């Protein structure tokens, strides 16, 4: 391809600078808010350079630290939802990747239709069901219902990774006398392991960022961190300092995981449909 001229380069970098200010600027601005003294949240013109103050984080996570338990809850719910979805998704993805069968296309579409269905439609009946069976506000209520998203997503993404494990290796194992199950655990699982890890990381992030299910199905002692941030929205006003400190902690795990995922980000966000 033709190399751009210096003038074109300047225009491209200028546009990219605008793009970066627009997309990354608001996040940085919000992170600064978490380190401001609560009374300075609305100072205009804004102070770019100021004495950082850890008071917000101390109040929300240390003393009295009402939000620390929500951080633990988020970990429990997201990890639980990820671990529960894996066996179901591994079996289904293996079937879809390795067998010719009637209705495969329909089944794939059916999984994805769940991912794009409105979750609010499901969550209201779940709310009533969970109180009937005595699971109201429990971790298992959230972990189980999150499967409506976690399983279809994992099936799609895992299938795309299993498709890449050459079938020859599996066939060689069968020739050596391994049955299908032994071959699955000795060949597919180790070779698809990076894919399984990537899928788990995405499922974790999506569960972590989900607000509707915990908002409706949790109680105060089991609620997750993103839902906890909403409680600083009081009728008397918004406690921006506390809110920002909890929101910053809530945004860290997904950000770090996305950075670790690197080149798999495209594939994960498109459920494996685009390889990237």
């Amino acid at each position: 391809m033709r190399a751009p001229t210096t003038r074109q380069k300047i225009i491209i970098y200028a546009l990219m600078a605008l793009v970066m200010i627009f997309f990354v600027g608001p996040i940085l601005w919000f992170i600064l808010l978490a380190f401001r003294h609560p009374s300075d949240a609305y100072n205009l013109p804004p102070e770019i350079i100021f004495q950082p103050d850890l008071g917000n984080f101390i109040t929300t996570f240390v003393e009295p630290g009402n939000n620390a338990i929500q951080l633990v809850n988020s970990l429990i719910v997201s990890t639980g939802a990820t671990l529960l979805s894996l066996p179901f998704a591994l079996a289904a993805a293996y079937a879809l990747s390795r067998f010719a069968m009637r209705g495969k296309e329909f089944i794939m579409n059916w999984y994805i239709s769940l991912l794009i269905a409105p979750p609010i439609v499901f969550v209201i009946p779940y709310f009533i069901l969970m109180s009937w069976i005595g699971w109201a506000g429990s971790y298992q209520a959230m972990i189980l219902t999150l499967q409506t998203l976690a399983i279809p997503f994992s099936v799609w993404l895992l299938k795309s990774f299993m498709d890449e494990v050459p079938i020859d290796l599996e066939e060689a194992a069968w020739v050596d006398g391994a049955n299908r199950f032994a071959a699955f655990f000795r060949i597919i699982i180790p070779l698809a392991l990076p894919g399984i890890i990537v899928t788990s990381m995405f499922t974790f992030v999506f569960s972590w960022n989900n607000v509707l299910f915990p908002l409706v199905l949790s109680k105060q002692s089991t609620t997750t961190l993103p839902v906890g941030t909403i409680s600083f929205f009081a009728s008397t006003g918004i406690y921006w300092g506390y809110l920002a400190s909890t929101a910053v902690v809530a945004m860290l795990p997904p950000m770090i995981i996305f950075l670790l995922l690197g080149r798999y980000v495209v594939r994960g966000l498109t459920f494996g449909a685009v390889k990237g």
Partner: protein
Amino acid sequence: MRFRKRLPYLLLAPSILILLALILYPLGFALRNSFWFWNLQTSPAPLYHSGLDNYRMVFQVTPFAEALKNTLLLAGLGTFAQFWFGMGIALLLYTHLRGMGLFRALLIMPTTLAPVVAGFLFRYLLEPKGGLLPWLLEGVGFPVPPQGFLGNAGTALFSIGVVDTWQWTPFFAIVLYAGLLSISEEVLEAALVDGASRWRLFWSISLPLLRPIAAFLVMIRFMQLFNSFDLVYVLTSGGPGTSSRTLSFNLYREGLVSYNIGLTAAMTWLVVIIVSVIINLYLFFIYRKREW
């Protein structure tokens, strides 16, 4: 031999059974209760059979038509804006100038946030008194409504769309960039040698080759926007009045604020029907040769 034939279905069965249970229960629950009068605040169980009253009430008691219009407007315009802004940024990344790798890594940050957190970010930036954006805009003489962009009936829904576009344009950008990379350089070189302009190259070669990816992305995003709840909840709660209420928020209000379970059940089925029509129309027009 028979076991071999059944094996794939046996492997699929656990996931399909658990998902069916998780879907059919709410749908069945909603279907039954849509014909019953039931308010959870006054009784723990359905009170009496009410025929089609709930379906009629959806239109009389709740701003269903307005919510549907808002939802379609938000999903349609939002997806359109995100696609084309994303495409523009993808083309910038595609120049492969020094530093683009770093830009791409930073660019995805908005998409990693929980939608509620994205909502808070902009709620703070848009505060009518003390927010950075109104202050900057007033500084350059741009008219800012006195109640702020989120408190003004004319701009509330639009603002929700802007925040969602902020969060999801990077998603389109990096996926479309990956799509551009998958187009063979030789095809593009050949067209350039034949004297095609870059503009022509994009419209006649790159864009048609991106079509399968684009169709998939647009469908996913349109439906996610159609289902928007988190952003609406945090930014405007559907207000002022009902000016930014979406279908999901309407369901939430009736079901989990007013506890009008019967009416919510009827609305659930209306929404399920609308969503099915949209998805099937889409599949019919875009995927006539279903590619996945």
